[in-house]
């Protein structure tokens, strides 16, 4: 894996630049309603402004559920389980969370992060109409939406024949860049990204990683959920591991090796991680 090798900015491991806690997740538990879903069990972590926090884990250990709770597609039992700058947000819907400055890149880009048969303009509008003020006098401002879509395409080097083409016409990597771009250009206080470079070619992956680091350098809090440990080690300041719906305590990447993370992911330290999680609580 060559990911991260051509990053241009120095590593942003200067702890002093980290700001106050943006997102605090406190004793979050959730029963999944899906037949093969994973229940979340007393999850605790926080993300500060200016840092990238990584969550590693083998797929199917509660990442989907955690992401849906964070985005508001599923609601918490108690609003206080999720705090954004101290304000409880656990009962807010996705739109309300976006209004507070949170952006999301979901795991499945085609059909979840985008509408496959809609144009890039419509897909740009999809999650940004509030932050980017794309509605004027109750009507959709198509001109501004098109401009925003074109801005994403230009700044994130999305290869497309034009913003009138559908999301499904883009290659996986280009659609990923488009969605990441759409979320990042909304200047979020907090951005939650699932598998930022899944199926993306090396060049595009580097660009996305760079964008994530730049965003953190500018003060945003970034949460990245990924299976790719090389990726997490290349961009994160801290990493925690999710296994069977439980989250370990996060470690600074300088204090932990890929091998240790791998062991946590395999669940061999599962009981330990549970103890750690509860000691934090």
């Amino acid at each position, binding site marked *: 894996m060559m990911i991260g090798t051509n990053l241009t900015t120095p590593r942003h491991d200067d702890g002093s630049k980290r700001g106050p806690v943006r997102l605090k997740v406190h004793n979050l538990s959730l029963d999944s309603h899906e037949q093969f879903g994973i229940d979340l069990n007393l999850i605790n972590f926080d993300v500060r402004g200016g840092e990238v926090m990584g969550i590693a884990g083998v797929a199917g250990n509660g990442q989907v559920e955690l992401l849906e709770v964070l985005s*508001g597609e599923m609601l918490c039992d108690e609003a206080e389980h999720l705090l954004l700058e101290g304000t409880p947000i656990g009962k807010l819907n996705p739109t309300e969370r976006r209004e507070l400055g949170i952006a999301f890149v979901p795991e499945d880009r085609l*059909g979840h*992060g985008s509408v496959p048969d*809609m144009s890039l303009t419509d897909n740009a509008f999809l999650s940004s109409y509030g932050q980017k003020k794309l509605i004027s006098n109750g*009507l959709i401002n198509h001109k501004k939406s098109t401009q925003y879509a074109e801005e994403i395409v230009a700044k994130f080097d999305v290869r497309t024949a034009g913003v009138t083409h559908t999301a499904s016409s883009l290659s996986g990597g280009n659609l990923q860049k488009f969605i990441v771009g759409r979320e990042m250009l909304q200047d979020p206080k907090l951005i939650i990204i699932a598998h930022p470079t899944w199926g993306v070619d090396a060049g595009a992956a580097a660009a996305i990683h760079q964008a994530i680091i730049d965003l953190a350098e500018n003060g945003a809090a970034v949460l990245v959920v990924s299976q790719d440990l090389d990726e997490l080690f290349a961009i994160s300041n801290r990493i925690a591991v999710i296994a069977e719906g439980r989250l370990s305590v996060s470690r600074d990447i300088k204090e932990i090796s890929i091998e240790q993370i791998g062991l946590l992911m395999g669940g061999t330290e599962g009981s330990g991680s549970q103890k750690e999680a509860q000691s934090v609580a």
Partner: protein
Amino acid sequence: MLLKIVKRPEPSRAMVYLTPLMALVLTVVCSMGVFTFLGVDPVEALRNFFIVPINNAYGASELLVKATPLILCAIGLSVGFRANVWNIGAEGQLTLGAIFGGGLFVYLHDVDSVFLLPGMILLGAIGGALWAGIPAFLKTRFNANEILTSLMLVYVATLLLSLLIHGPWRDPDGFNFPESRMFSESATMPLILEGTRLHFGTILAIIAVLGTWLMLAKTLVGFQIKVIGAAPKAGSYAGFSQKKIIWFTLLFGGAMAGIAGVSEVSGPVGQLLPSISPGYGFTAIIVAFLGRLHPVGIIFAGLLMALTYLGGETAQINLGLPVAVTGVFQGMVLFFLLACDVLISYRFALNRTGRVSG
């Protein structure tokens, strides 16, 4: 098979407009076969079906009269279909619109006021919306399939109408026929062209078409409807409420069908009868699909389906063809349309790999 079906990288926009025409051509070809089978000269039959009914001004006005309820119902249904809300009970909602609107007249029949007709239209919309609100409530609250509930309510609505005009709403001077009083002047849709039956309801239909077009193309709720229909998960990601859209589309569709109901009973029908619609609410399903769920397309499709009603009558009078041909024709159009629609998302290619598809 020599041909295989290959997915296009993105849906073909040309095909979206071409397939309704292809379906129409195929239907005409097929119905020529049906006419021949029924022992009628196919060219003469087609002439009677599609040209004779509208080759004079009165015929053209009748076309608009018949198209009005079809377009109103189809506009309402199309909004739901776009969101994958399958309201197929427009016929029942139309009936309830007629009951609510006509009911106002029955109780205020001696009132002569300019507000009577607007009141009837409003009540008709409310009646249709209430009837469609039942499937909406059952779907959002109990997850009951709206296809089945909205359809069952069609039968209930028809029986309800029959109950009322056999009982309390029967015309006291009507020799015991199951009919309401004839609607008075102030309860009747004003004619917009002397010497024809063309009435104000057609203008209501045009307003509905324009309004729906604006809603779908320009407003957030229209955008939400399209997103939830095309990719429900993307809709919930964007924070759009599925339940709200189910409520909205059903109430909207019900209101449109309700207005169609009032416009029929206070327009061409003129009173409440046991049967106030030759299945407009069902034919509207075909109109909605044939019109590509698009307001402008629905106008054309509505006119075409209206023509099949007129054509069926003309062909019966002139050639002795059974009226049922109309129903077969309408069903065939929808069939061929759905078949041709494969070309929007897929294309046919020669099968070189030897893999059998289909």
